[in-house]
């Protein structure tokens, strides 16, 4: 009885959580311009998304920008964050606390504060806001997460690995690329993925730092679109696809983890 009650609670909660997403998914298969108005099954919106979106409404352009910015920001913050973590590990006392404190600020700050403060920075430095400022802003809020992802592996690593490699005749670059980096690869990859998804998701920081050159990412496009009244119908299949991709990735990952733990137990 108690178990049934618990399961019902979870089921109702999940149903409510997913209702809007399912709703969007169902209505991605009809042509109607107005959401919630079923005009018969059709895959036209999906076709439009892939074959026509770029021509008329700039949606494809926004998707492209989103991915370029996310890739650039994730790549740069992975490098910067890894180097920072390596340095941070060797710091002691107040210097270490100060760096960690600074590293925490972008993670704690709400998006709007990060956005406004960086907007003021670019204004102050007379930097024209556009692609570059958005990427720099994204690096700012992504890097702390990379530092935190790489740190655990750095701590686990034998402390003198780098020096030992040098003693054994490796050049500094070899010691780094052939000895240190391979051991940090896991943390760097999860840091990269984290940075990438954070950048994809961002709205507020992009909104404040993109300037007035008309740069649109997916988030700002959706925002502008919704403010004009009425969502572009092609966004429905897009949301559905993005959601399905995330769902599948997550399920695959979890099933694999489950299988591994069962194997370990057996």
């Amino acid at each position, binding site marked *: 009885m108690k*178990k049934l009650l618990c399961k019902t609670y979870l089921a109702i909660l999940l149903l409510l959580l997913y209702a809007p997403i399912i709703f969007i998914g169902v209505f991605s298969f009809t042509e109607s311009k107005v959401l919630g108005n079923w005009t018969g099954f059709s895959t036209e919106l999906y076709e439009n998304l892939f074959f026509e979106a770029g021509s008329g409404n700039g949606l494809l352009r926004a998707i492209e920008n989103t991915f370029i910015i996310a890739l650039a920001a994730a790549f740069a913050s992975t490098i910067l964050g890894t180097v920072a973590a390596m340095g941070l590990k060797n710091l002691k006392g107040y210097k270490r606390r100060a760096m960690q404190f600074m590293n925490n600020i972008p993670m704690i700050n709400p998006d709007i504060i990060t956005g*406004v403060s960086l907007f003021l920075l670019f204004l102050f430095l007379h930097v024209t806001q556009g692609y570059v400022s958005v990427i720099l802003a994204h690096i700012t809020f992504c890097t702390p997460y990379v530092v935190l992802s790489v740190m655990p592996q750095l701590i686990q690593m034998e402390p003198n690995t780098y020096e030992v490699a040098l003693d054994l005749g490796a050049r500094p670059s070899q010691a780094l690329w052939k000895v240190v980096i391979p051991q940090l690869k896991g943390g760097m990859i999860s840091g990269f993925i984290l940075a990438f998804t954070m950048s994809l998701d961002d709205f507020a920081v992009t909104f404040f730092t993109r300037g007035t050159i008309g740069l649109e990412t997916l988030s700002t496009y959706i925002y502008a679109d919704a403010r004009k009244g009425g969502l572009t119908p092609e966004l429905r299949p897009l949301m559905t696809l993005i959601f399905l991709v995330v769902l599948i990735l997550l399920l695959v990952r979890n099933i694999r983890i489950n299988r591994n733990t069962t194997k370990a137990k057996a």
Partner: protein
Amino acid sequence: MTKKASWNLPYFIFLMIFVALPLVLILIYALQDGQGHFTLSTITRFFSDGDSLATFALSLEIAIETTILCILIGYPAAWILAGRSFNKSAVTAALFILPMWVNALMRTLATAELFNMLGIGLGKGTLLCGMVYDYLPFMIYPIYVSLSKMDKSYADVAEDLGATPFQVFFKVTLPLSKPAIWSGILMVFMPTVSTFAISEFLTNNKIKLFGTIIQENINSSMWNYGAALSLLMLVIICLTKVLSEDEKVAV
């Protein structure tokens, strides 16, 4: 380059330019008038403007209500998910966390459209529902992690010593998960108190929150007043953070 400590230099410089300086700039811009002279008028303007104050109070109210609702709804869910009686399937837990990875604007728009279709008028009620819907995973996640890692023998001992299940929960489990609740509070309260765009969508622009006023001022080139409002927001965030740190330590 003998010590790897010198590897700190690039990130240190980066943090100074992109984290420290921008925050100082908020302070500087907040305390200047349009001509670059020092003034406190931006701050006094806020405290003498009834509309701004009302919006500020409403934002705080909405954020607090959202946070409380998230605890009330999220805690039982996290408790069931981490519980022994529940078939501990990581997939079910993942399903609760999954919405965090979908663009918040998209989720919010979908919610607003759903309310529209069901004929529910957009207003404060839908705003609260939408915010809870958006941030519930952020409350469930830390509590779930803490409860599933918790040493179950504490609860067992309490039970053996004669505590009722009710007592076990309120005297053992709940206090032990207090730091996680505070993490959840931080993760829900901070974004909800500073939100913009989401509130506009969920109320069809009927209700303005503090974040929206900041955005409107910055976008209409009222940088100094926008910065002053941001400074105020920053104070709220710092207070919340300090308070939650105290509470975490006090456990």
